[in-house]
């Protein structure tokens, strides 16, 4: 890892000003960025830590939704959304291992948009609103393929607002070595409308399975997707699973999510 300078702002204005400079990067929990810097895939001149900014930490419920500060750690999301949004809490509680959850943040996970990460599926299926210091994005506009998001240089996530669905479930088939999702499916139902987001499966990153959404909006039962076919084409292939295997898992996990949604 190359050396760098350190900045620890305590408010959003200072953070924005520091991040406007060249070769500067945000660090939140560091659970992705530090390994990336060790392998020299990132070598910022300056790191700006968000962990000292209290206003972007914590979970606040409001009418019909829950807003989570970008620098809120997985462990805190897991504990504080348990009754508000159990599917989100259980997703957070099953990321990596306890030590990772004690450092990693929701904002870091969304900004990184790893094709096998869990939170992008929650944001997309949950129709979340992702706010930055400059503007706000719908989850549909935010994720733009592998490790790509709509964020521009110097822009950082400040908070994420999740509408509370009528029922929801996240089903993750764990890749046992990394503990990321080999495939993960998040299903929500709100006012009869169903959204299904799939992570870990597509070479283009997290996506909505619209055919399943349609079928499940008409009939919220596992049987409703029985005749749908998930093509293996475009699915991730690696030593952990073939494209056909991942395609198979998409349907199985969607079915399990429907069965267990509450």
């Amino acid at each position, binding site marked *: *890892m*190359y*050396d*760098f*300078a*350190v900045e*620890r702002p305590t408010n959003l204005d200072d953070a924005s000003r520091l991040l406007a400079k060249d070769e500067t990067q945000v660090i939140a929990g*560091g*659970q992705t960025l*530090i*390994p990336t*810097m*060790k392998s020299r895939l990132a070598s910022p001149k300056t*790191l700006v*830590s968000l*962990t000292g900014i209290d206003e972007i930490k914590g979970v606040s419920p409001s009418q019909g939704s829950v807003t989570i500060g970008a620098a809120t750690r997985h*462990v805190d999301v897991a504990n504080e959304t348990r009754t508000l949004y159990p599917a989100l809490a259980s997703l957070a509680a099953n990321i*990596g*291992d*306890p*030590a*990772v959850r*004690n*450092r990693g943040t929701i904002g870091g996970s969304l900004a990184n948009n790893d094709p096998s990460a869990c939170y992008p599926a929650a944001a997309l299926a949950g129709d979340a609103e992702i706010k930055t210091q400059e503007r706000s994005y719908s989850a549909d506009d935010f994720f733009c393929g592998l490790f790509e998001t709509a964020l521009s240089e110097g822009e950082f996530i400040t908070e994420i607002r999740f509408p509370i669905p009528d029922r929801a479930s996240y089903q993750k088939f764990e890749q046992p*070595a*990394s*503990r990321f999702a080999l495939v993960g499916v998040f299903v929500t139902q709100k006012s009869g409308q169903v959204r299904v987001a799939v992570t870990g499966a597509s070479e283009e990153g997290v996506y909505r399975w619209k055919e399943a959404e349609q079928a499940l909006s008409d009939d919220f039962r596992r049987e409703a997707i029985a005749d749908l076919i998930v093509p293996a084409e475009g699915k991730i292939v690696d030593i952990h699973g073939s494209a056909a295997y991942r395609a198979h898992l998409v349907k199985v996990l969607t079915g399990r999510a429907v069965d267990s949604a509450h």
Partner: protein
Amino acid sequence: MVTVTLTVNGQEKTSDCEGRSLLSDFLRDNLNLTGTHVGCDTSQCGACVVHVDGEAVKSCTMFAWEAQGADVATIEGMAEDDGSLGTIQQAFQDHHGLQCGFCTPGMVMSAAALLKKNPDPTEYEIRDYLEGNICRCTGYQNIVHAIQAAAQTMRAAT
């Protein structure tokens, strides 16, 4: 260069290091606390687990400056004041919870974090909590036994 001041096992320590110095490097190289092991350096194995403000973290995946002002506990602080083994350490010895011992500092620190939150964990809860601690030797069975025994001893003492 950054100057990092933190409390380690109850004692305040200050030392200069580079921005890129990991907490694991800082503990081992600057403070000479080599009980914290570095197995993978890629956030996978958990040999480097220490507590920062009471919570288990992988010290190889945190910069030393991120622990500025924090209260850090390492395996060296798990022994009793007279130098004898602490309850969890003693249970690992009694129940053969280690073979080569490389993973043990991280296992003990993770176990301590678990037992603080959950004084009477089930076998499943122990295995789940140790998800990020890898052991190449024991097959985990005796580690689980050791933690169950330590939990019992600690409950009996309170």
